[in-house]
């Protein structure tokens, strides 16, 4: 397994994963993903951190059209802005939802999981992170 976006997702040898972020030493902002400078204040003085694998829904929508011609995912599908403790946030797909039976709300807790998006030419899985409502 390997990560589709190594600046955000690190796959560990054990098969477990870490979500990456930075905490700026100048402006104190916690930002999702690794960046050359703090995206908030452009300081180079930051520490790399790992984020919690639980967050909450800050915003969401249900999309009723496939985003492009090669789409293999479900339709309709849900995308959500996920906020992590400390304030970092990212946008990902909310997976495995029975839309007929689930009332989505802002503030709902979610858990982050990894899924295979694709395979590389050697057959190795390329992983992305998704969000899921706790079972």
């Amino acid at each position, binding site marked *: 397994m390997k990560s*589709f*976006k190594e600046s955000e997702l690190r796959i560990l040898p054990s098969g477990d994963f870490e979500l990456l972020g930075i905490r700026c030493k*100048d*402006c104190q*902002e916690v*930002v999702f993903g690794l960046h050359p400078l*703090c*995206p*908030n*204040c*452009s*300081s*180079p*003085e930051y520490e790399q951190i790992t984020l919690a694998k639980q967050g909450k829904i800050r*915003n*969401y*929508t*249900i*999309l*009723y*059209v*496939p*985003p*492009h*011609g090669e*789409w293999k*995912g479900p339709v309709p*599908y849900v*995308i959500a*802005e996920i906020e992590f403790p400390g304030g970092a*946030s990212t*946008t*990902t*797909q909310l997976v495995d939802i029975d839309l007929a039976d689930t009332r989505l709300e*802002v503030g709902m807790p979610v858990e982050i999981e990894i899924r295979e*998006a*694709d395979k590389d030419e050697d057959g190795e899985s390329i992983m*992305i992170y*998704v969000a899921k409502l706790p079972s």
Partner: protein
Amino acid sequence: MRYEANNRGAQIPGSNFWGLEMAKKLKLRDVVVLGVGLHPFGRFPPEKTYMDLAKEAISRAIEDAGIKWRDVQVAMYSHVREQASSAGLLVFQEFGSHGIPMIGNIENACSSSSTAVWLATRLIGTGLYDIILVAGAEKMPRGPLTSPLRYSPERYLGTGVMMGLYAFMARRYMREYGAPIEAIAQVSVKNHRNGAINPYAQYKKVFTLEEVLNSRMIADPLTLYQCCPTSDGAAALVLCAADVASKYTSKPLVRIAGSALHIQKYSDRKKCIPQNTVRAAEEAYEQAGISPKDVRLAEVHDAATIGEIVQIEALGLCPEGEGWKYTIEGKTEINGVIPVNPSGGLQAQGHPLGATGARQIAEITLHLRGEAGERQVPGNPKVGVTECAGFGGVSTVYVLVRQD
């Protein structure tokens, strides 16, 4: 070295905006819109190429300006989607290469041609050139507009969809300001009504509020008729130094009194109303020496209905959180207190990405000259603004003032 986070970006002492302060020191020349030209927006068969669209818009702008092609001193072109590289050069050379600088593409997402205008006003303002032509044209593929990355997690997750991002905006706005979806959807009703009397509009069809709300759901709560179409079309502008403009035309001169380009900052996500437009408007109004109260009409970026509402608030044309009330009270109609998108906006006129920014400036120019035909904003308006937003966080704002 200590890095200070601030709310305004690059600053020099005593100023909010770098370019604004330097412009005062340099005493920039005034720039006017000398000519405007459009190819109608719509869907055209494959054999009608982007070159055909662009050539027609440019020819009309040249004629409207009263100049000859050989009077053009710099030519700039904008497109976004897949067309020939140096597409603009192929178009311009149809008119002849008389040894002037030509730029084949100035791309800044939906704000591409408005970014070209931003550059052109500064090239003329500093005195380097008198006459610059800006053209934008597009032939767009059908289907949703998504993240530009061909191979990315976003493509597998389906997160980079423009209308998904607008749906986030709509949901947040509805939560924060208590707006009902009916008020947001009313933007579509108004803009399609305006588009129906605009000969250059892609859609000339009027919809009821029920038809808008009951059209196919795209990104909850945005239905199909709340999302702008994909479009073909072209727009061109001839920009000129004010002090030589009377040599060419006897039409009323429309001055670009304010022009600003701002980018979304990381901290802007804390606000629902787009702060890039707030800053761009603040800078453009200060350049023009006006306040939002002086503005008589606006063309804004309604790629989705919610876009119009948040942008008129960001421009200060109504109080924060009241854009939806202005909309349902009819204040943004052509005969309202602050007409917004008399063209039909992106919703009805269409949105060929590279053409839209120039098209908005052309529209305001026609209204300030009293040449907008059936959709003319009444009351002999003298001041109008445009706002053009784009993927990646860009916002451009222009203040246009008729010289009397």
